[in-house]
């Protein structure tokens, strides 16, 4: 249970309002015509939208975890936050090794992996 207040108000309600506003922004970002802006920075509208969505997803994520899941403000929050963050390393490894690699022929081994590259 939360023992603190946000801007002098109840944290759950404040968090709720915040989340609703952020989600609304997300939906609006998808609907908004960002074509001209995208062109001005030299990319597609989709990419801009995705960036906006990702950037908004981060605070949403933190807000839910910290306030609704009591990772902030309780007596046991410190150790539970550590517990929750414990898989981070393994998640990064999986995303890097499984999600972001692609099969390729052995002959396309990049130069930095080859003997002789470092004068050895």
């Amino acid at each position, binding site marked *: 249970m939360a023992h603190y*207040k946000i801007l002098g108000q109840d944290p759950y309600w404040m968090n709720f309002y915040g989340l609703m506003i952020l989600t609304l922004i997300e939906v609006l970002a998808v609907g908004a015509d960002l074509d001209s802006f995208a062109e001005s920075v030299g990319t597609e509208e989709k990419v801009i939208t995705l960036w906006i969505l990702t950037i908004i997803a981060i605070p949403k994520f933190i807000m839910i975890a910290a306030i609704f899941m009591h990772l902030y*403000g309780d007596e046991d*929050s410190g*150790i539970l936050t550590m517990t929750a963050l414990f898989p981070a390393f393994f998640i990064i490894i999986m995303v890097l*090794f499984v999600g972001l690699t*692609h*099969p*390729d022929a052995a002959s396309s*081994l990049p130069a930095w*992996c080859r003997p002789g590259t470092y004068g050895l």
Partner: protein
Amino acid sequence: MRSRTKGAIAVLLVISAMLALPSAQSLPAGISGVQQSGCNCHGAVPSDSVVASIDGLPESYNYSETYNITVSFQGGPSQEGNVNQGGFHLWASQGSLGVNDATAQLYNENEVGHTEAGNDQVAWTLTWTAPATDTNVDFILHVNSVNGNADGAGGGTSGDMWNKLTITLGGPVEVLEAADPFVVLGVLIIVSATLLAFTLVFVFYRKDPEAFDWDNFAPWLADWLTSTDHKKIGTLYFIAGLFFLGVGGIMAMIIRIQLSVPGNDFLTQEQYNQFFTLHGTTMIFLAAMPMINGFANWMIPLQLGAADLALPRINAMSFWLQPFAALLIFTGVFSGHGADTGWTGYAPYVVSEGAHYGTTMWAAGQIMLVASSTLTGINFLTTMAVMRAPGMGWMQMPLFSWSVLIANVMLFLSIPAFGVGLIQVYLDRVIGTAFYDIAAGGDPLLWSHLFWYFGHPEVYVVIVPSFGIISEVIATSSRRSVFGYRSMVYALAGIGVVAFIVYGHHMFTSGMSPTLRFVTMLTTMLVAVPTGIKIFNWLMTMHGGSLVYRTHTLWALGFLITFTLGGISGMFFPSIAMDTHLHESYFVVAHFHYVLVGGTVFGFFAGIYYWWPKATGKMLSEKLGVLHFLTAFVSYNALFWPMHRLGVWGMTRRHHTYFVTTEEALGSLPMEAAGWNMFITVSGFIFFFSNFIMVFNMIVSSVRGEDAPDDPWGGWSFEWMTSSPPPNHTLYKLNDGSWGLPTLEDANEHIANEPGWLSSWFQRLMVTDQETGETGEASH
């Protein structure tokens, strides 16, 4: 009571009905029923007065030779002055029949009968060409005899009688009917299960003969099925694990029979493929993992000074998922269509229609095992995090507990990848999703990645608990505290982290991203460092101690030898130019059996001899134990050591047979390979049977073993503080003589149990209270 009896009888009836069902068989095809039941156009009952005969058949045939045979009969309805006449039908299971003249006609290769013109004869001449293979041939001849008219013209229809003759003909070599290896396996499994059941019932009967009747037996059985007590579930895990160790061993022996001589045909390719698949799956998931859980269930609460695990009912759930999963995994075997994918189940073969039906159930069973392991992980991590006795910080935990902690961290963070992969395979095979549909762009290596992301930590999961056992056993046997406790813990943790970043070495030749191959080549080399630390620490533990040779000590020393050898051979793989040759060869087979049998299983044996007195309250026989160690250790090394050489020679893994030659190009292995393979098979059988010495030892000990003291070996951890066996609801004998939960003292200078800098930082960041209250958002 009455309804229970009825229920039991009903279950027995159902089981016997189920057993009876598969015995209904039909003969090979022919014209329906003729070869079996006779011509239905004639009388219903055969008659003895008609005597059929076939002349011209040899004692045993020669390949593909054609024989002239004469079919004839004598006797029949007797009426004076009449001649018996009639017809015939001949069926031969093999070879091909032929006709010489118009009195007989060919229905098909296997069947011949009389024609209209031949309907009034007593003998017909035919030919039969023997098959080109070595087999038994069955002939079934039906003849009928009618009361023909005396003049012989037109025949008669009265007094129709018929009879049947069956002849079995052997080939050039007398062959026994080849046994179906699945039947052999099935029978052995059923026999082992029955023996196991009898043994258990006998042992429990001997413990309490008076209470051995149904009124007591039913609740006793129900108690085992529903128990949430960590000791009972631990025992169940052990029974299941040892049983499947035996089943996997039987499969290994069948595989070894097949490989004992080159070009053997004891198993067909398909059967061999299923046997090695199930051998791997059984040994890893149904033998090694349950045994680990057995040790962990028994000893973790005892070592931590806790009353039980944190979540007892979840613990029961973890166990019960396993036998049902085993049933699913073996479903295919019972129908002869077991999974034939290898325990790695590489895509896209695993989702192709070429893989047997049993593969679906194999995946389904393993999904259940994943669920089981996840629950186990949650349970043990929670238990070890929260239920340590007062005074026992992380760095005062016994090393076995540490090893189980690390094993569970690895297992539980890696197994979701495997579970997701299996669900993908299951869905692909069942509802037709397209994860591994190549035409739709599916990537076969995705499965390999998900599998090995789990698979590599998994092989450490099965070895790490053995490290823990060995640490306990060597320290206790040397009467010392383990050397370098802290570096042991850091090495374990190091193995736990490294496990996740090295898995690519299983895929060096798989077409995986070359960058990742290079990265994992570097990281794989790192594995040697923490394992090296552990081995040297164990050796150093013995320094200045006074080693007592007991069976578990012997196993621990044996472990040091075999595991070191296995560790050294492992160092050959990250060297790419060697790996491209050794990959998928018997060198790999030798390596992982050295670490998984010489490491894991030897560790288990040490653990069994070490903790058996604690768990049962009875001592095991040292003589039998030493006999077990000597036979098993020697035959084990004879079994796996030569495989290294076979691998270097080019013997390929997962091939159902191999060929030897002195000529370079004809086959792939030199002549000596045949001899070594036979040697390996013989050693394998000795190793297999030597382990029954331990089983025998256990039975003898349960029935009439000496009573064990509370601390027979001189260990320090909490499990030795309770009685042997521990009381029903685990409690400990405290110093003041009362029973309760203990507190750990530390013989070292007081190490403050303060949180480290990282957790203090998190505490400050995330916790607001009156004292700090500094974090931005918060105000009171």
